[in-house]
């Protein structure tokens, strides 16, 4: 491989890791706190991307400005979905919650395909193709912006979880639900809020992805799996773990994309299975099975 | 008189990450005895049993059963070899009846290889009777109360026809009357020729039923010997009940 291709790959991987951190972090908190695998995560991400697309296409709203709208809308949607559907069976065996979120994903994708059609679409503001170069390495502005915004949002989440009362309530619920309840934490609301946060972060990631990549209704599934792989790589339950996992995964993805483009997803998935088998505690995290 | 050794650990050690849960423990269990294993909470008693029975991989050290090195064997092989155990937190097969629960032990345990499921189901009737659950034979395990779940644990272990039986806090959570009958049960099992290691928090039970006691503290051997002797050992009292109590205890002794 040429040096240029290598450096460009490294830069691309780092830029990608920002967005993927955002994709995975919402998935991670829902998993860690509610103890469910939210298979609808990618579907919410896709809806976030479409909100940005329609705001831009119909009303000319700048995609970066649509970020808060997309996140806020999906925050409300997520809250409702958790409070009035998932919460009904939240403590049921794995099979039930797994199938439930799976069904949600199917419905959202199917409806999106029905109303918005299945073709690829792109958000193309004037500055879409612009960028700068360092040496021969190209850095598009939008990707750099997406990277920075992702890290800012991740930082904000960290601050929220660590320094606010609500954030502490969420973490307490994740650690010991009974103790949290005794401390006066309202569990149903906290669960719904956590899920809403996860959904909003997914939507935010969707918005950022829509600016850099073409979108279609089935785009989400791949991101759900990526989020899972990242959580496994980084270990469940810590924000630094997710960042590390995302970074690692981005390198795997970018370089397998260079070497074997048609097997990109297959390689990512095989990495997942290998990590599960040989390093079940993740690269940085604690053991998650006994 | 040379007593026959049934189980022996040599420098048995278990680390969790950097934490030593069990550190270089040498324990010998003689055939036919009831040995007590005590120690404060978190002393590593259950972990010790877990590494002997293959529930957890051992970090270093050796385990011998009747002279055979069983270090690192998978749990099911150890179970088939003749070591059975109960669990501190009961582990019934909730979807099965009492009879089926116990029959699983008779099917797969030490004497299981030669039994078909049908034979196993017939074989366990006397065991269910022995633990006093004959009326509950057809009940599902998830309908039982805790004292009966503890008995079920015992019945499942007995059905395996073990030579060595580990009883992990079978008496915790029982009232005085229930403890009495459980102790009686332990003695009766021992009379059948089964060697028993009783892990217990209830002191009364230990003194009443064991011939010898082994004390673990912070994963290491603290003392061993006859029950009364060990329980009056200051180091043991201190480990168990804390400094304050020891001071008071000795003040009282002096005063008396």
């Amino acid at each position: 491989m040429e040096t240029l291709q290598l450096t460009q790959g490294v830069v691309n991987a780092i830029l990608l890791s920002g967005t993927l951190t955002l994709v995975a972090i919402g998935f991670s908190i829902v998993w860690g706190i509610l103890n469910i695998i939210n298979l609808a995560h990618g579907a919410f991400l896709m809806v976030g991307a479409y909100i940005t697309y329609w705001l831009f296409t119909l009303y000319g709203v700048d995609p970066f400005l649509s970020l808060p709208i997309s996140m806020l809308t999906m925050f409300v949607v997520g809250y409702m979905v958790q409070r009035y559907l998932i919460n009904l069976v939240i403590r049921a065996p794995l099979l039930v919650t797994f199938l439930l979120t799976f069904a949600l994903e199917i419905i959202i994708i199917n409806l999106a395909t029905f109303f918005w059609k299945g073709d690829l679409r792109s958000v193309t503001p004037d500055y879409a193709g612009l960028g700068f170069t360092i040496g021969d390495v190209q850095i598009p502005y939008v990707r750099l912006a997406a990277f920075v915004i992702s890290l800012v949002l991740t930082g904000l989440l960290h601050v929220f979880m660590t320094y606010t009362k609500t954030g502490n309530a969420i973490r307490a619920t994740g650690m010991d639900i009974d103790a949290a309840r005794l401390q006066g934490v309202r569990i149903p609301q906290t669960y719904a809020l956590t899920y809403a946060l996860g959904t909003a972060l997914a939507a935010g990631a969707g918005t950022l992805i829509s600016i850099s990549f073409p979108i279609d209704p089935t785009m989400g599934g791949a991101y759900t799996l990526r989020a899972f792989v990242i959580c496994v790589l980084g270990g469940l339950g810590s924000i630094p773990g997710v960042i590390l996992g995302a970074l690692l995964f981005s390198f795997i993805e970018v370089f397998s994309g260079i070497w074997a483009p048609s097997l990109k997803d297959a390689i990512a998935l095989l990495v997942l299975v290998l990590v599960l088998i040989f390093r079940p505690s993740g690269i940085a995290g604690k053991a998650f099975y006994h | 008189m040379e007593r026959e050794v049934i189980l022996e650990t040599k420098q048995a050690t278990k680390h969790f990450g950097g934490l030593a849960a069990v550190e270089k423990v040498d324990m010998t269990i003689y055939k036919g005895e009831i040995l007590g294993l005590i120690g404060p909470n978190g002393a590593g008693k259950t972990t010790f049993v877990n590494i002997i029975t293959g529930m957890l991989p051992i970090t270093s050290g050796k385990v011998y059963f009747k002279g055979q090195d069983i270090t690192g064997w998978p749990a099911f092989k150890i179970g088939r070899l003749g070591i059975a155990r109960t669990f501190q937190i009961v582990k019934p097969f909730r979807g099965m009846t009492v009879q089926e629960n116990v029959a699983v032990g008779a099917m797969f345990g030490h004497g299981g290889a030669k039994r078909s499921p049908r034979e196993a189901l017939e074989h366990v009737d006397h065991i269910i009777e022995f633990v006093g659950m004959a009326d509950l034979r057809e009940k599902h395990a998830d309908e039982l109360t805790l004292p009966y779940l503890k008995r079920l644990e015992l019945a499942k272990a007995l059905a395996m026809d073990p030579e060595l039986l580990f009883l992990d806090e079978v008496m915790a959570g029982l009232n005085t009357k229930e403890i009495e009958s459980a102790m009686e049960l332990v003695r009766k099992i021992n009379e059948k020729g089964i060697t028993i290691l009783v892990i217990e928090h209830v002191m009364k039970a230990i003194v009443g039923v064991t011939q010898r006691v082994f004390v673990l503290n912070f994963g290491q051997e603290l003392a061993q010997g006859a029950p009364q002797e060990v329980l009056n050992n200051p180091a043991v009292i201190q480990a168990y009940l804390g400094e304050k109590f020891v001071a008071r205890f000795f003040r009282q002794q002096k005063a008396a």
Partner: protein
Amino acid sequence: MSDQKKAPIRFSSLDGLFKGRQGVLFSIFLLFILFLGVFPFLPFASGFWLNTLTLILLLAAMSIGWNFIGGYTGYAAFGNVAFFGIGAYGTGLSMIRLGLSFFPALLIGAVAAMVFAILIGLPILRLKGHYFAIATVAIATALGEIADSWTSFTGGAAGITLPFFDPIEWSGQFFYYMAYLLAIGGLLLTWFILNRKMGYSWVAIREDEDAANMMGINTTWSKVMAFALSALMAGLAGGIYAYWKTFVLAEEVFKIEYTLQMILAAVLGGTGTIFGPFIGAFIYYILITLLVFFLPVGQLHATILGAIIILVMVFTPKGLMDFISGRKKLSINALLENIRTYRV
């Protein structure tokens, strides 16, 4: 009340099977099996019905297979479509590349599926809960992608075309009976295993794996066997399906919806029961047909599937059998029981 809560695992003695309400239901079930057995010779057995029933019976067979690992052993396998796909490709490729006739080719397809299940089962069956579930999804998805892109071997996006069944005028009946025998064979296999130590070991693992292990059960072997047998059922179904449709396409035979259908059929009829998945497959088809009929939205088929899953998961995750058999009365209260138990 409580003594009829769950049927015991044991099913070895046939006495009592024909007694009481249980007996009536079992007799009805046997009559239904007989009816299905002679169905192709009945005057109203049109191609449409034969076609539909073949599909249902194939689903029943796969669902019975899923029940081994998902229902009895309690491992939430979400990638059983992988075995269906391997069975389909194994059979198809053996027929066109090796020139084998259908039955040896089917055998190769099924064995390939089983071997694959054993190879991946050994490592991933050590995982628990979510991790096992996702690992199976990941493997099935990756396999589909590999099959899709390995054009020289699998035909890629163009698929592979198989010869027609000869004589073609008996094609409908032939595949109907293949599916029928597979489903019935699956029922007998379930019954057979439940009366062996294997059956007890599966349920013991589902209820408490550590205890099962300590009691002398080689849990690894039992789990891998459950996985391999579920792969056998799906692999055979895949091979039959491939020859029936005379066409294998990666996108089609690795569709995750098939896994969902298997699970849903088992759940509807009752997981961890002998007849549950078989009956569930019929219930599933009736439900989806009714819904498609009353809600004329062809492109929203997946939404309907999703809605069924949600309704079942929220209201009756233990299946419909208790209501059908009259063991439980269908009431608002009975439907809300699940929510009352599991909400926070």
